[in-house]
């Protein structure tokens, strides 16, 4: 899949293998008691709390977003009604790592 064709997010998001370049990448893993959370979902909300994007967590509990620089909230949803919000700041040309323990 290329980004120009589709809009959907594969599990874990589209991995950033070539470094951030000019992108503002936010990525990390979600775990519970040391084990990856999957299935589960990571949602990115903007500074107004508005939904911007969502990816299903990968088998390793991982997620990747390509945000604009600025302040965001990462929201995690998982079976059993588990939920967590974390504040994160994205910067151009940087990969911001954010691991979430539920």
């Amino acid at each position, binding site marked *: 899949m290329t980004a120009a064709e*589709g809009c959907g997010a594969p599990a874990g*998001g*589209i991995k950033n293998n070539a470094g951030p370049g000019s992108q503002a990448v936010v990525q990390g893993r979600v775990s519970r008691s040391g084990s990856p959370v999957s299935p589960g979902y990571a949602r990115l909300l903007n500074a107004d709390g508005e939904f911007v994007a969502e990816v299903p967590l990968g088998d390793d509990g991982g997620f990747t977003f390509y945000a604009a620089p600025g302040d965001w909230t990462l929201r995690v*949803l998982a079976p059993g009604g588990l939920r967590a919000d974390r504040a994160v700041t994205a910067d151009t040309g940087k990969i911001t790592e954010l691991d979430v323990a539920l």
Partner: protein
Amino acid sequence: MSRSDVLVDADWVQAHLDDPGLVVVEVDEDTSAYDKCHIRGAVKIDWKKDLQDPVRRDFVDRAGFEALMCARGIRNDHTVILYGGNNNWFAAYAYWYFKLYGHDKVKLLDGGRKKWELDSRELVTDVTRRRSVRYRAEEQDTAIRAFRDDVIAAIGNLNLVDVRSPDEFSGRLLAPAHLPQEQAQRAGHIPTAKNVPWSKAARDDGTFRDDDELRTLYQDQAGLDLGRETIAYCRIGERSAHTWFVLHELLELPNVRNYDGSWTEYGSLVGVPIELGAGN
């Protein structure tokens, strides 16, 4: 028509999985989700391989849709239950597509794959094989599909609803934030479009909001005149199919079209007007 004619919840689907008049279909862009596990008895449709022409940018034609239905074992009289990932974007797109080719008995599973997973309901790995059947599609119903000239003519005249995120609408992002932002088209939105992100119509778990909340959202908060014709668009037409479903199927507005060319077409056209910023 009522809400239950177009939308069913997970409990209903679970109770009717063995109903011979029903075919459950998972529709995704990333079909590895189906390959990993899916609802028991569900067949899969690949948004790109099965629904898009392999050469030019358009849908598979009527004969192609008939061949797809035959191969998936779907008859004209089957009730098709669609679900998928990405908050049912591609399932809603397929729903619109089934309607486009005249298949009336089609419903969405409310909340799609996400709700099913968050409920910890059963998912299986066995790939479903159905016997091929005969299927006859209608000609495309273009009363529910908008093309680029329709959209240009609609500027300032009809409701244009841009269902992308506020950051894509304003021109800050060119694509949803789970995608790399290097895109060919210009950023921004179609002048006079109102930004009502698809996500406002859904709860966190992917289920649709109640009709009263939806009506308030489009009419009171966004200021749309629901008595006017409406064209919904996004980036490639699948998120706007989600909003088309809300407006045309849940709120039962008669004149709503989905512009599947959406921003990847409009934002690449030479000479058309583009507006930047948060809009009015």
